């Protein structure tokens, strides 16, 4: 007989163990899906999770994909910690890319050390502006931030599409849906010859450090934590709820915007239709898998980044559709949420000691 007992307090050990459990369960379930599809499960998993990062190039690609995921997830953790459901990071990324891309295009025929900082700043501001829409609507008009931030994703992608097809398209570009190439001074430098990993990774690492400091060393971090646990308590303690909502949205928008800057000023160096393969949505999973903890998010972003690479490799070598990546991402979140059950409940077997 199995008996389920509620824990008096959530277990801290299990808090950090469940992400690992979730990954193991996802691998099992993934193997099962591959088996059903008629592949050898172990071989498929190997192609999915090991082959893509077996060489230096693969490892650089892993970091390249993990960078935006980590950055966005750090930003989202501010929102999620304080009970604000910003699920439109994809839109904030896109809009950040649009603004920074627009600024970079202004300087397309100029060089200068001052260009890159302006371009980066423009991206962060773009993301913040876009994130401020759901934030302001939530605080002053009581509007559901989930739906607003999500609707804005579609809008931002259409704005981008309009710009790269129409007014911003490259005059010498034979009507391809893309802008001019940015000047070298507007590009994030590539770190190693022949690889694609670029300086954007330092932005992500800086975000990790800063967010850690804010979460655990400042009054603001404490306020966010309290509001996350109980909005009533936060109100009772006299915290300025509205100000905080707007602030966390701005932080998360800035991070997403910076991720957008990395995507366009890194290896690609121009605006085009598909700025992001849904990094903004995947980062939600990364934030949860990393337990909204900056260090946890680093690990989580690396793990989830593999699903992007694995999906590509598996598609090339085994003709497994690339959407398998999304299936894995969904499963990780399912299993993570499910294994959280163990945080609050103990499973006891009859006969075991109390």
């Amino acid at each position, binding site marked *: 007989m199995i008996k389920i007992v509620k824990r008096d307090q959530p277990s801290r050990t299990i808090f950090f163990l469940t992400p690992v459990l979730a990954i193991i369960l996802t691998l099992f379930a993934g193997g099962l899906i591959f088996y059903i599809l008629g592949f050898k499960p172990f071989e498929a998993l190997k192609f999915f999770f090991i082959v893509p990062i077996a060489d230096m190039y693969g490892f650089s690609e892993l970091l390249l994909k993990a960078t935006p995921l980590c950055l966005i997830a750090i930003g989202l953790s501010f929102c999620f910690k304080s009970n604000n459901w910003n699920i439109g990071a994809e839109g904030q990324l896109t809009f950040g890319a649009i603004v920074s891309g627009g600024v970079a295009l202004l300087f397309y025929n100029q060089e200068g050390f001052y260009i890159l900082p302006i371009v980066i700043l423009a991206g962060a501001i773009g993301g913040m502006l876009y994130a401020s829409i759901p934030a302001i609507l939530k605080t002053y008009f009581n*509007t559901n931030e989930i739906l*607003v931030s999500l609707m804005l994703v*579609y809008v931002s992608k*259409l704005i981008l599409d309009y710009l790269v097809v129409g007014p911003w398209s490259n005059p010498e570009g034979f009507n391809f849906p893309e802008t001019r190439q940015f000047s070298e001074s507007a590009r994030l430098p590539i770190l190693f010859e022949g690889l694609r990993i670029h300086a954007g990774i330092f932005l992500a690492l800086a975000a990790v450090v800063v967010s850690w400091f804010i979460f655990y060393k400042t009054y603001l971090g404490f306020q966010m934590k309290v509001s996350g646990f109980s909005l009533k308590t936060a109100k009772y303690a006299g915290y300025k709820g509205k100000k905080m909502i707007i602030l966390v949205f701005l932080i998360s928008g800035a991070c997403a915007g910076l991720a957008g800057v990395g995507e366009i000023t890194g290896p690609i160096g121009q605006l085009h239709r598909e700025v992001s393969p849904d990094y903004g*949505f995947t980062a939600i999973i990364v934030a949860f898998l990393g337990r909204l903890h900056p260090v946890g998010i680093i690990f989580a972003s690396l793990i989830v980044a593999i699903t992007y690479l694995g999906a590509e490799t598996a598609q090339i070598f085994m003709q497994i559709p690339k*959407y398998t990546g999304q*299936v894995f991402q969904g499963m990780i979140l399912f299993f993570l*949420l499910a294994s959280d059950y163990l945080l609050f409940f103990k499973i006891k077997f009859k006969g075991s000691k109390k």
Partner: protein
Amino acid sequence: MMIDINFVGLIITSIMASAVPLILASCGELITERSGVLNLGVEGMMIIGAISGFALMTVTGSLFIAVIGAMLAGILISTIFAFLTQTLITNHVATGLALTIFGIGISAMIGKNFVGIPGKEFPVLFESLKETIPFLSPILFGHSIVFYFAFALPFITNYFLKKTKIGLIIRAVGDSPVSASNQGINVKLVRYSCILYGGAMCGLAGAYLSMIYTPQWIENMTGGRGWIALALVVFSTWNPIKILIGAMIFGGLTIIQFHMQAVGVRIPVQFLTALPYIVTIVVLVVISRDSRKIRLSTPSSLGKSFYKDN
């Protein structure tokens, strides 16, 4: 300028046709939310319904099996959500998002072999009556059974919630799970049933898209309709009849794009395509501004987990 009355009738018909998936999904989600559960997986469940319906139709050749199968697929995938949120007491928002991501992935995976296959013609009812009355009869006659069902559904749902005992139980569970539970109502069972019902309706909405509205399989073909359906539930202030009105407005916005392009209005295509999303935001703002009204009509326990010690 003479306005061709039959042309107006035609436009109204196409608006109604594009409102069908929104009505189905919203009415399903409305029941789920009335029981206190917020399922953000509408988009995922719809796309699963779309591919299941289309795949079953291609494989079995039977439209009946395909429609039922799409609903069962919606139920099946919503069972994951129900198990997680009700039995394992997970967060509704996060679980719903996972459901959407998972659903889009799985549907594209299954759908790989069905891209480019032409759909089948779906039988329509009362076709012989289509020519009888000008203006009115193209609106009333010659549609699929799903179409008629969708336009009856808000009224059925309204009656069900307000006049039947089960409807009352669902509302009680949504407004106060604790007192409902003390009355001997099995809260978990009610919520499970409402989630699965929502899944079935979203599955049907998806099947309508891939089998009747645009009979083919395209990746991601729901294109955000699931999210608009969710917004419609808020828009309606949880009242099924208002869903009908909202769905017609959004259906209208979708159809207007095509006609404006056809007439040659010089507005960028992208702006017209963005219109339904922008209008959704505006409408949400207008509706939600009155926080008292929203608070009165929102199911009190919406999105909150219920756990009973036993």
